[in-house]
């Protein structure tokens, strides 16, 4: 058997696991989706198909439960948000699908989205607490307005200033002395900063999304087997940290 256009795959992580989940990603998005190959019966079936990007396959340990992230765009925002699909009982005749779509349910403000830079992951909560899945939340900027003719440049170069004039412009970097991150480091970390997200937890059974992070200047660590997380927050100590001095943190459960 040959299966084409597989962009990602994951075997069911159990001792008797026989299911192989695959993301299909084709040019033009036609036929994109999630497919399941059952190695015991040598059968292939389509779990879901839609003209969008799928990624982040993850099986829950010792189960037939699977999650995947898929992109969703609209005409108001720049870039996609992520919808989380969770199937339980994938190996059965009728798997159950539960979906986290933060845009439909209004779980997040319209200026925020679920990002794909932090993979959705199953969490190890206490027995009886229901399934929890960690995701990342970040700002969702509005789509930039189309440039008007006569001012500024665009990707096609129309309206752009002549190259000679651009070379005459001086570079001016303004760094406030109270800024705890020096300019050179800010420049280096631009790309990483754009991928930053706040950790959040989706409670599947109650379909509730709780954003745990409040700033990027903290570490949030879920505690295994509990519904608590430890937060080490260092906003008050950023200047000390910037010069390699003492790193002081505050600790909070959440």
């Amino acid at each position, binding site marked *: 058997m040959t299966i084409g256009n597989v962009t990602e795959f994951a075997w069911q992580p159990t001792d008797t696991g026989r299911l192989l989940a695959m993301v299909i990603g084709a040019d033009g998005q036609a036929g994109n989706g999630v497919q399941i190959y059952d190695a015991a019966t040598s059968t292939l079936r389509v779990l879901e198909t839609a003209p969008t990007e799928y990624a982040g396959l993850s099986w829950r340990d010792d189960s037939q439960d699977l999650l995947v992230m898929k992109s969703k765009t609209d005409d108001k925002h720049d870039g996609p948000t992520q919808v989380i699909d969770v199937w339980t009982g994938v190996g059965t005749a009728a798997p159950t699908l539960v979906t986290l779509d933060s845009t439909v349910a209004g779980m997040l403000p319209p200026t925020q989205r679920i990002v794909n830079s932090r993979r959705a992951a199953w969490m*190890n*909560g206490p027995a009886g607490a229901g399934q*929890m899945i960690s995701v990342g939340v970040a700002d969702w900027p509005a789509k930039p307005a189309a440039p008007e003719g006569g001012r500024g440049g665009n990707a096609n170069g129309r309206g752009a200033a002549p190259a000679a004039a651009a070379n005459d412009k001086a570079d001016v970097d303004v760094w406030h002395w109270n800024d705890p991150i020096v300019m050179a480091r800010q420049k280096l970390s631009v790309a990483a900063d754009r991928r930053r997200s706040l950790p959040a*937890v989706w*409670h599947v059974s109650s379909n*509730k999304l*709780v*954003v*745990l992070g409040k700033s990027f200047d903290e*570490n949030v*660590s*879920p*505690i*295994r*087997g*509990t*519904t*608590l*997380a*430890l*937060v*080490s927050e260092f906003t008050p100590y950023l200047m000390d940290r910037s010069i*390699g*001095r*003492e*790193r*002081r*943190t*505050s*600790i*909070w*459960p*959440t």
Partner: protein
Amino acid sequence: MTTGQRTLLKKDVGSNASASTGGKYAIFADNGHYWTINLATKAVTNITAAVKTSFVDVESDSTSPERPMFGVAGWTKNDEAVVLYDKYDAWRVSADGSTAARVTSCGLEKDPVRCRILNLAPQPGEPLDISSPFVTMFGPTSKKSGYGRSPGRRIDHAREDSLDG
């Protein structure tokens, strides 16, 4: 993680906190000592105040006034104790600081060797088994390294056997 609400446990501490394997305690370092926080009672305890060794790497060239610690190896079953490193050895220190004992005795030898426990737990997040742990060994003077096993106070086998010939 059900509400997102936060409760202050401890302000102005010297390191990030990490949770114990069983989720009963958090541990952090401050002023050259390890402290635990009982997450049920919020009690904060200096667990290394009475231990007759130093867990601080005073030879570090870090520019921070707070010297780095040698580190935490892990927690034992049911969060009974945390295993901490000094310069040469691993120590089992109870979560409330009431007891402390060496797991290895590499620092007591004539030519001290730095021993660090190999965590062979099949899954991350499992408790540390220190009943007879395998250790990595490094001689700060000889620069030789190897593996050993620490039953009680004695290192068996492979002491300072070089891995690189």
